């Protein structure tokens, strides 16, 4: 643990606070009875991850994390929760599959143990990049933009197709199926 303590005090404080926010928010998402509370705890986790991004020099991604995740995705979650009216508490204690919960917890503990065991020797292996330097002088946005628009240009174009497909699919899925006139009017009155 010596490399952790070798860090400067503000860095350490930021890391500890953000990690506590991330992990407590994640546990809150899992254990909250109410879906709305889960969504709010998810926002806490996303903010913590954004802070960890800033601490590692990924400024643009931290901003995108806040705008896209906390701003759009969680709002979409809340919107759907309100729209389909599942804003009622779930009976968390009910367990339709026997032994599901202990097995899930055991599997989670096992996978965590495996990750930590596997990485006991060295956390990060591999060669440093020669082409695109992430650290050092220069703007993070400039570097990321250069990388996305040169090296990963095709992937970027494909994501645009993906987004169009997603939008069309969402509109198609959310469209009301054609029904008789009277039932539509009933829906509108409701």
């Amino acid at each position, binding site marked *: 643990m010596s490399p952790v303590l070798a860090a400067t005090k503000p860095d350490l404080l930021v*890391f500890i606070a953000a990690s506590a926010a991330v992990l407590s928010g994640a546990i809150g998402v899992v254990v909250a009875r109410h879906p709305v509370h889960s969504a709010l705890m*998810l926002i806490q986790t996303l903010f913590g991850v954004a802070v960890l991004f800033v601490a590692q020099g990924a400024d643009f991604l931290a901003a995108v994390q806040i705008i896209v995740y906390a701003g759009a995705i969680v709002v*979409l979650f809340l919107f759907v929760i309100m729209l389909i009216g*599942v804003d009622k508490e*779930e009976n968390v204690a009910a367990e339709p599959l026997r032994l599901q919960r202990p097995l899930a917890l055991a599997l989670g503990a096992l996978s965590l143990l495996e990750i930590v065991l596997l990485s006991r020797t060295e956390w990060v292996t591999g*060669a440093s990049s020669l082409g695109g330097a992430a650290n050092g002088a220069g703007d993070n946005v400039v570097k990321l933009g250069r990388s996305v628009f040169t090296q990963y240009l095709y992937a970027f174009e494909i994501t645009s197709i993906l987004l169009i497909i997603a939008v069309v699919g969402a509109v198609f899925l*959310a469209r009301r199926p054609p029904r008789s006139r009277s039932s539509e009017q009933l829906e509108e009155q409701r």
Partner: protein
Amino acid sequence: MSISPGPYLVVAAALFTIGAVGLLVRRNVLVMFMCVELMLNAANLSFVTFARKLNDIGGQSAVFFVMVVAAAEVVIGLGIIVAIFRRQSGATADDLHMLKG
């Protein structure tokens, strides 16, 4: 010198594990979806950590693409959930057994 990559990766692994356990344990479809988001965020966090350690901006580009795909996935998934819940009003994954053949 800032904090070494190890603790960040421990946090990412713990976050991924919490998300995976939540996906297995919870029965509300929306909460299961949120647990998937937790796992995606854990992967993003380790991507950024590796990008810093290996001094490669490609890791951050990968996070960028993961975010785009996550946004598309959430839109489609929530659309499917809305379409299902319009037909029936059950809040848990156990109620969705109409595809059982």
